């Protein structure tokens, strides 16, 4: 280690001292996520408002963690829920079992279940980690604890991330404003 090298390294640290820290102060500032982040699942809808999910259970079959439970029912032809013959009467994902691998999304023939961006799902009860349709449809904003807190405090839901753009598979999904 020569003296010149020592002086050079002192210069490097001095330059680093006056650079902006790379740290993202997460709970205070949102995390910039990549568009293909694997977060909480989103059950998307067709543009006409019908659910894409047809209750085929292929996602449950593909799931390596056995986290998905689907119960299908026949559509009422006059008042259909989904675009197919059947729809998912019960669609539950256990977020404690889920490993966020995205195989359900790959297995889905209609593109109904898509990996979203929400990741702030920490909660107190086991039962609160089982997310149903009412927690995952596209129009639902935030996760269970976030919505519970918002209902309690009366403040809007604060999602802790930003995305540069939303990938087209997440049809109708609204990202948090920057």
């Amino acid at each position, binding site marked *: 280690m020569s003296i010149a090298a020592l002086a050079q390294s*002192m210069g490097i640290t001095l330059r*680093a001292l006056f650079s*902006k820290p790379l740290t993202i102060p997460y709970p205070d500032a949102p995390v910039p996520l990549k568009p293909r982040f694997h977060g909480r699942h989103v059950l998307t809808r067709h543009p006409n408002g019908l659910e894409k999910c047809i209750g085929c259970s292929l996602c449950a079959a593909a799931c390596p963690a056995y986290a998905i439970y689907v119960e299908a029912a026949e559509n009422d032809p006059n008042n259909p829920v989904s675009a197919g013959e059947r729809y998912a009467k019960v669609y539950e994902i256990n977020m404690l079992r889920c490993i966020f691998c995205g195989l359900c999304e790959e297995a889905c023939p209609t593109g109904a279940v898509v990996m979203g961006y929400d990741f702030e799902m920490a909660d107190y009860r086991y039962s609160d980690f089982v997310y149903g349709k009412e927690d995952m449809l596209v129009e639902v904003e935030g996760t269970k604890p976030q919505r519970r807190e918002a209902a309690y405090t009366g403040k809007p839901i604060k999602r802790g991330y930003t995305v540069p753009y939303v990938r087209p598979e997440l049809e109708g999904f609204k990202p948090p404003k920057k």
Partner: protein
Amino acid sequence: MRLFCLQDHILDKRGACSLRVPALLRKGIVFGAQCLSAVTLAADSAHSTATDPLWMVGIKAFLVIFGLLTAFAYMTLIERRLLARIQVRQGPNRVGPNGLLQPLADAIKSIFKEDLVVSRADKVVFVLAPIVSVTFALLTFGLIPFGPKGAFFGYDPWVIDLDVGLLYVFAVSEIAIYGVFLAGWASNSKYALLGSLRSSASLISYELALGISLVAPVLLVGSLNLQQIVNWQYENGWLILYMLPAFAIFLLTSMAEAARTPFDLPEAEQELVGGYNTEYSSIKWALFQMAEYIHLITAAALIPTIFLGGWRMPGFMEQIPLIGGLFALPYLWMFVKIALFLFFFIWVRGTLFRLRYDQLMVFSWGRLFPLALVWFVLSAMVVAFQWPLAVLGWLSFLSLVVFLIYAALTAKPRPRNIPRLGAGD
């Protein structure tokens, strides 16, 4: 004053000593006590010339200790913040506004942690060691002048005015090594003992170069008194101009003395599970840290006092119109200079790696010590033959040139075409 009791105790009973103190340590304690008694004698003789009443000295001593402890607490915060910025992080910023209450949180944490005394440890010495460390670290700072006579509300801005000033500094900072050694020995742990052995060895070897490097300025000034050193520099220009090598050696060795990064073997966290303070926890461990930082602050105050004109700027600066009066201000320049050197120490810690033990010893005995001796002989010649001061100035300029040439000759060509890693993804 505990050491006095020990000394009597040991001298009276010789081998039949009830304290479990090994022979080497016993000699050490006797030596330390003798140093201390010499120092207190010197302090007594100097006390007769002191102008301040005793209560004022007490208040100033309290202020110095209080200030040092506060400075220690905030030094840890500033150091952590600056190190973080050097590593492109933010550092502790959660406790209070901008993390300003972090030292308080640290203090509460370290006081309420479980205070372990190892069961097979020598309990008296085990408890005594951190106290020795921190006490003797605190004793040095009172010597440093912060302004002219009467600048502290009509009283003198220093706690004690000793004619043996620098000797006192050395005696006291030598004794602080006993804290390290006693801690390692009393812990009854192999790691702690090894750590304390090698740290006291390195501290003692750096103390040599430190002492020799300061002999040259003392010779030139003709006084050990810190105020006279400051006044000499006011009249003749800063000592760094005449004593550049001595300044460099003193800077490096005082870093070693405070166990700072290039020489921080005493508390190498990655090796020997920490060194001499392996078995210490809670407030006792914090006391060792405190001693180390107080040594650092004292070093940062001593270096400008001896080499950079102390609390005043050189005389010609006061002749500058308009801003000239600013240079005569007491306190201000001392604090600026202390802050500058503290920043330098943090900067070095953020940059350099720890030396290996053999490198450490070679650097001290093979480089610094001979260099200090050569410079001492040169400046002694200048003083003895009564050559003009300018000779020393040219000599120290020459040493700078030689150093730069050496640096240029040993520099390896910068490697080209190193692929740069992108940030993030």
